[in-house]
């Protein structure tokens, strides 16, 4: 029997890994947040791409993030742009900077007090409709 929850889960806008981003999502699924580091100039980045945006070299390696991060900014959605999220309002979306440098879009979870910019965060990988996501919680 299909429940309402199943229908909502069916609508989850799951990531669509491609050849470039598949290692990122596979690692997250295994419990590790990874980023790319250029083997020529050591620049580190996310989201996954084929060339270093700093020196344009094609060679890079995947490294595992320590999970230490800080909060750059955040917003709280009160409008649902997608059926899956329309039933989850309000929810936050944040820009997070890893200690290693790369920034990513994320959610802050397990908040006891309010958020403030530059507050320290720690990686908290959670599953949403079965998909591992790199969320963060205050330290």
């Amino acid at each position, binding site marked *: 029997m299909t429940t309402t929850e199943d229908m909502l889960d069916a609508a*989850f806008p799951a990531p669509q890994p491609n050849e470039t981003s598949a290692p990122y999502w596979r690692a997250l699924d295994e419990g590790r947040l990874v980023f790319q580091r250029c083997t020529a100039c050591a620049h580190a980045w996310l989201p996954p791409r084929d060339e270093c945006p700093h020196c344009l070299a094609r060679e890079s390696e995947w490294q595992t993030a320590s999970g230490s991060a800080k909060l750059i*900014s955040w*917003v709280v959605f*009160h*409008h649902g*742009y997608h059926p899956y999220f329309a039933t989850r309002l309000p929810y936050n*979306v944040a*820009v997070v900077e890893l200690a290693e440098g790369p920034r990513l879009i*994320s959610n802050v979870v397990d908040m006891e007090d309010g958020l403030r910019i530059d507050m320290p965060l720690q990686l908290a990988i959670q599953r949403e409709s079965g998909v591992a996501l790199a969320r963060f919680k205050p330290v």
Partner: protein
Amino acid sequence: MRANIVIAGIGQTAFGKLPGRSTISLNIEACRNALADAGIEKNAVDALLVKPPTSNPQFMYGQTLAEAVGLQPRVGGAWDQGGAANVSLIGFAAMAIEHEQCDIALVCYADNPRTGSRHAYEKAWGDDAAYGWFGVPAGYAMLARRHMEEFGTTSDQLGAIAVAIRNHGAANPAAQLRKPLTLEQYRTSPWVVDPLRRDDCCLVSDGAAAVILMSAERARSLGIDKAVPILGFGQGQPSWDVAQRGDLTRTAAEVSGATAFKMAGLRPEDIDVAQIYDCFTITVLMTLEAYGFAPHGQGGPFCADGRLEIGGELPINTAGGLLSETGMPGLQLVLEAVRQMRGDALLQVPNAETCIVSNQGGIMHTHSTLILGQRQ
């Protein structure tokens, strides 16, 4: 190039809901009106430059439009820079005329996201949609939050921007939204994406606008007596997504504005009236800082206390901008700048001799600046 090139004609359609009209049809109406305003024949035009519509993006749109208006221009095509493209195309047209690539240029833009698709404004941002990251307002909200937290910018200060612009729009019979706004009303406006309220967000509109450029000499020879000189222009392209930018409170509008001011030989204190791209209130605040009207981080206090209203130190968006006249991205601001410099705007700023216009697109991914002078 100072004052060698002029805007010799402007035209527009009605703004709001225009069902049953293609963007080609809307473009043609705006161009027809601009030609009539300049008093020139279509066949005098030898450059046709257009910003592609967001509601139905397509390849070779500039050529489709050229066929529909019956022109085979020397210079023509579409340029995608989001909302910065209008002013960037005006700058490009000015350079093309200056270097004798063409004589008379039509720059136009039409869109119909209100009756057509508004997907461009509400779309998922790639795989980040898994985190609930959707739509254009959220990106600007992300910039606004950082500005508020870092500098103490308040919701009321953003509200003062909305109040000024909405009240200007209320005086414009052609405006799509003619509902004045008080700060008290603003405070009860519902959140869209906190910290942005509904009244911080621009309209979604159908409509079109067009401008005609030529050399000042050509305008004189044609007997055009309301030509408005282009004093300066510039661009700056942050380009990267919000999450990838260094300082979220700074934008390449600094570069764009500085380029335009240098070309014009002017400084912010020389500007009498401004038409600042107001897709969201925070955009106005950050652009005014970037242009040097207020120090970095001090845009909040600068925008409060009526400074941006008619009668204030720097009246902005005197026909209602994107928040009130039409959400059409950008060209309506150039039209109002031209009216102010002709001296025949509805809310005319007395003795205004200079007007700055900002256009920008994406989530501050692109920026372009134009400075106009009083009619010659």
